[in-house]
């Protein structure tokens, strides 16, 4: 097993860990963190393939995704704060009434 395979395995593990965390945990803040973990897993695989195939655009795309992810979190955390201020809990089950 060479480096590439190892890195891809790490990437898959990160993604799976993140997914399991999102599903299993009942704390919105922790779920957000696990979402970031999933994103990191995906980005890692993107970085590996960029190196492997020698496509520079991949590196640019990666930087872009980082930026977008940062922006997302910047919006998600204030929303979460507002939710908690209104509902006094971090349990997502309490906000089922928000379905469209």
């Amino acid at each position, binding site marked *: 097993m060479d480096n590439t395979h190892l890195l891809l395995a790490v990437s898959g593990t990160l993604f799976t860990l993140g*997914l399991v965390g*999102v*599903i299993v945990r*009942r704390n919105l803040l922790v*779920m957000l963190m696990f979402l970031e973990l999933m994103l990191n897993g995906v980005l890692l695989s993107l970085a590996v393939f960029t190196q492997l195939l020698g496509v520079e655009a991949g590196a640019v795309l990666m930087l872009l995704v980082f930026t977008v992810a940062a922006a997302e979190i910047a919006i998600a955390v204030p929303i979460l704060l507002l939710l908690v201020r209104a509902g006094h809990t971090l349990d*997502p*089950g309490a*906000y*089922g*009434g*928000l*379905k*469209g």
Partner: protein
Amino acid sequence: MTAMNGMLTLLVLLPLAGFILNGVLGRRLGPVFVNGVGVGLPILAFLTALWAWRTLEAGGGVPIIETVFTWAVIGEHVFEVAFYLDRLSAVMALIVTGVGALIHIYSIGYMRGDEGYARYFAYLNLFLFFMLLLVLGRSLLVLFVGWEGVGLASYLLIGFWFQDVTKARAGRKAFITNRVGDAGFLLGMFLIFTTVGTLEMDRINEAFAGGLIPLGVATAVGILLFIGATGKSAQIPLHVWLPDAMAGPTPVSALIHAATMVTAGVYLVARMSGVYLEAPAASTLIAAIGVLTAFLAATIALVQTDIKKVLAYSTISQLGFMFLALGVGAYGVAVFHLFTHAFFKAALFLGAGSVIHALNGEQDIRRMGGLARRIPWTFGTFAVATAAIAGLPPLAGFFSKDAILWFALASGQGGAAWLWALGSLTALLTALYMFRLLWLVFLGRSRMEPETERHVHESPVTMTAVLVVLAFFSVIAGWFALPHYLEPLLPVPALRFDSALLHWAQIGFAVVLALLGLAAAAWLYQDGGRRGDEAWERFQRLHRMLAGKYFVDELYERTLQRPWRWLSDRIFLRLGDRVLIDGSLHGLAGLARWSAAVFARVQSGSLHWYAWMTLFGLVAVLIWVWRHV
């Protein structure tokens, strides 16, 4: 000869213009405009018809063909809207526009103040338009458009006072009964087209005259077209609509249900005489149906108590006479009777309208009597027309009816003694019921209700003048030798025996019969019909049967309407409409609702549930990729 000066097109379009103008603007512009357009244009149409007739005669009677436009080209078949004027259609056009114009003038007085004054004239003009289309069309297709159109106009005018449910229903009955006949007409047209390959009537006649058409086809065509004619011309078994059609305004009864539209069947058979000459079996059927209709309708007319119903049955009876003539090959004679009948029957109906007008809507002849001195003009013209229809010489009906009876006996194309005997008996009954009507309405002592009697008044001059004109023509119309005039088109049948003596005896006998009817009516009904009532006391069963019109309506109700209603209700409504159509729609809606309920659960609002579903989706996609790539 092909004249392209648009004369016939103008003739047809004048009443249509009247319909459109009156229909769109009539209500807004008031009665002066309505009169000007609604009466003026039919008079113009009559003048145009006269001009067309003069042109025809100037050309020596060679048919004038005027192609208006090409309707459709299907493969090698070309369907044109073309007008065809020969002596037959000229006579018909003159009757339609002439009598039509007179009745329009009469209507000014009769319909004054009616709420639907403009609508009435619009419909009446529409009728004239379609009738002219029917009479002048060269192709059976154009004739059929007119044929359906006059049916529509008839329906609209019978149900003119549609707020009254019985009147609206009478209109519907007329329309539906006519559809039965039309089905036969259409089938006949199909058969002609597949056999001959054209629907232009002059060509059809030529093709059949060639003698190459098999007898079976000719007979089938003849019978199918005759079925169409029985519908329009109220012959047995489709006669039931005409008496009910009297629900319309009286001038409408005079124009549509006596003088013109109901004679369309006679015109059709006469026009297609080339077919009937090749189909003796169909001709025999026509003669038999004609004479039976004439006789049975006359017997019913004997006991009717509604003035318009008597005249309605008399119309059916006279149409029966015309078909008798057609059946024995005397086509010109049938048209002759059509011609004379148009005048005296229009005069009778308009006279009846004048009586009803005078009595403020009273139609029951048991509550009339003694009107002769109160409304002398109406009485005088009505008496002349009565004598004309009864066949007293030298009035119009005498000549035409006598010719029919003579050919019923002597024609080489199906003349028979029994046709003549039944026809003569009918002639006797005709004189009897018509003079009964005259006596009960105008003579004897008054049986009117005092309130009605005080208001009796002679009709305005627009009405009486028309009556006088029509009565005048009822006198002289028989002096035109119409069968001779039409002979180049409609050959007179060869006689079985050429005996002038027998002919004179026949004429004498017919006159004796008419006088006998007059005498019997005078004796039975001179004093309010007391003797007549006593006579009927002895034949109560017969009287009940005649008063019930042989219970044909009831028979149709039992044998046709009820099964149809059952079928419509059970099969078409409950099974077809409610179960199949509604059921399938409701089923589809239910399916949508059920699946919506199922899928709504997916979107529960639980974040974890969404995450799980994402997981399942991812796993499923991965498996699929692994399997297929």
